[in-house]
């Protein structure tokens, strides 16, 4: 196969150098669903801890057995020490799983009187909002990150990002939710119900009128009442949501933050990764590199794919004597085919983003569900 003009090899992404850099305090792993983002985040945090960092990993939705291996047997919004971490280098590892609703509740409770908080927490609109997936989870992941950063307990926070529709949701959702909660429409809805007469008239624009009447028709007046009660309770509570979202956004832009994009050698995953890389660069956010996960490598046997298939066919045709070798050659050809495809897809990404350092994690035969597995992934960062 002729790959055409040889693509320049992308710079190697040195994960160890990143986690050893004491100026780095936040590592964010992003990528589309199913690429091994959570496992990568956990592996980085464990490796950092065993290389002397006081690390905490904020995971979103780890596989049950992975969660168990980190001592997270149930949904838990509090960081807890992970047992079995080698602390010889002076590091430690805590882990927590984001509970979106609980985090939102805490934000409310921390910023208002108990009475008001109860009122908000009981509001049906708040309940729908705080448990819906459309943006709230991303917002709360950011919120939690802000909280963890404000505490002195850790010098490295590794954040896994929610399994969003697109990788960009993680960056956009908090702002979207913030604008929504601070938006004119919602303020108006709060105002209409509260003021009835004069304020209503003052705020009344023809457009808004159509909006409110359409909303009433579609969703019913009851929901609008819930919204306005919620907005009024919120109004007196604390500085705008948008402002908070912007603060966290600013935190992500600081040089203490490093983004790691995780992808599998699949077109979809790398396309998402591409969008994300472009976006980070546009927003001047610090991208550390790409972890290309589950790459099938081809061993250097000196036997090409076609050669292996042809040989296997010959052996099969010549009777049953060499079935084992024939099977091994078929297996080898299959691996070469997959490896070549992985290579091609990876190269295409690097051709479009030659500046992005890449580390490759070979596909493992088994699943990762304990600290040893995470450690193994961690040691592969180096080899890629």
């Amino acid at each position, binding site marked *: 196969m002729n790959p055409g003009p040889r693509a320049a090899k992308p710079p190697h992404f040195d994960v160890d150098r990143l986690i050893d850099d004491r100026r780095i305090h936040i590592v964010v792993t992003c990528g589309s669903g199913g690429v091994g983002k959570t496992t990568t985040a956990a592996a980085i945090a464990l490796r950092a801890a065993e290389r002397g960092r006081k690390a905490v990993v904020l995971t979103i939705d780890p596989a049950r057995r992975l969660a168990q291996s980190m001592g997270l047997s149930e949904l838990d919004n509090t960081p807890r020490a992970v047992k079995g971490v080698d602390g010889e280098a002076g590091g430690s590892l805590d882990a927590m799983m984001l509970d979106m609703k609980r985090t939102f509740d805490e934000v409310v409770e921390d910023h208002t009187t108990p009475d008001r908080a109860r009122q908000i927490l009981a509001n049906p609109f708040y309940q729908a909002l705080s448990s819906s997936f459309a943006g709230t989870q991303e917002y709360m992941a950011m919120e939690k990150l802000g909280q963890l950063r404000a505490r002195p307990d850790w010098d490295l926070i590794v954040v896994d990002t929610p399994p969003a529709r697109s990788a960009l949701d993680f960056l956009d959702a908090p702002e979207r939710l913030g604008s929504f909660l601070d938006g004119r429409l919602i303020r108006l809805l709060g105002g209409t119900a509260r003021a009835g007469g004069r304020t209503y008239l003052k705020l009344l624009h023809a457009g808004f009128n159509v909006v409110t009447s359409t909303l009433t028709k*579609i969703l*019913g007046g009851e929901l609008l009442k819930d919204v306005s009660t919620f907005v009024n309770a919120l109004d007196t509570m604390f500085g705008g949501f948008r402002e908070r979202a912007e603060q966290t956004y600013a935190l992500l832009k600081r040089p203490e933050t490093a983004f790691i994009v995780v992808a599998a050698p699949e077109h979809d995953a790398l396309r998402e990764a591409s969008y994300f890389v472009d976006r980070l660069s546009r927003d001047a956010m610090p991208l550390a590199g790409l972890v290309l996960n589950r790459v099938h490598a081809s*061993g*250097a046997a000196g036997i090409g794919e076609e050669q292996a298939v042809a040989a296997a066919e010959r052996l099969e045709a010549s009777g049953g*004597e060499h079935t*084992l*070798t024939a*099977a091994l*050659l078929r297996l080898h050809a299959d691996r070469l085919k997959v490896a070549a495809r992985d290579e091609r897809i990876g190269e295409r990404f690097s051709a479009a983003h030659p500046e992005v350092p890449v580390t490759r994690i070979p596909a493992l035969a088994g699943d990762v569900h304990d600290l040893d597995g995470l450690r193994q992934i961690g040691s592969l960062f180096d080899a890629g």
Partner: protein
Amino acid sequence: MGDWEGVRLHVVTGKGGTGKTTVAGALAMALAAGGRRVLVAEVEERQGLAQLFDVPPLGYEEQRVASAPGGGEVYALAIDAREAMHEYLAMFYRLGRAGRALDKLGFVDFATTIAPGLRDVLLTGKAYEATRRRTGDRYAYDAVVLDAPPTGRVVRFLDVTTSVSSLARVGPINRQANSITDLIHSPRTAVHVVTLLEDMPVQETADAVAALQAAQIPVGAVVVNQARPPHLAARSLPAARRGRLDHHAVLAGLRAAGLPATDDVVDLLTREAADHAERTALEKTQRALVDDLGRPVYELPRIAGGIDPTALYELADTLAEQGAV
């Protein structure tokens, strides 16, 4: 006759990365064979179907994307909440242009954010409409395949009544949600779950099947995707796994085939075999868990070179051979 006689709406879900869009496309092709018309719709604005069928990005109009053997046709559609909302406003409130004007005020974003279930009602509502649409005295589509959100969100997505009833207790949205609910809980719907033979996807599949059953939504098949061809005979697997294949036999085989016969080559092939055997053992365990779910299981091979429209025909055939249609 296939396993899903009488099913008009096929919902396809699966953990992220299991290839549910590919399976949705292949199922649509399989269902279209023999001169039928099938619509496949996506709801997550990913344009996964356009990539799969190798056509330009899909819009809100149904578009013919492939022909199936025997004169069948596959149409595709990317359902967009905003467009669905406009259509809905036009239909129920005769708000044509005014509906678009509302957009300038951020109305659609607002309405779908304020009531997260509303978005899902609009998205599933479009699929529901397509299943019922008639041209003349026959259905516009013989079947509709919905490329749905991943397993973690699918029950919430489909169980629209629950998600809107607490918000919109009366009114047209509520009525619409009730009609969708009737279809989704009826034998005219089947929710198929796509999995890989790996720990996490299988676990999520089991969770999804349980959640669907609890919500009384009919579970269809479990589709095992990217299954590996069994290269080694079952009897060789234990030895292969321990790296104890007959070194000399392999060496002799290489010689007989006229290939470089060195210890290094044999070692590499042996290591690859060990990997393969470990993988096979893992898959066997996971396969048993899948079988325990008590659903029809279809198995699709891993296409080493990647999925293109030609591969879709192959996958569709495989589904048909196993009884899916």
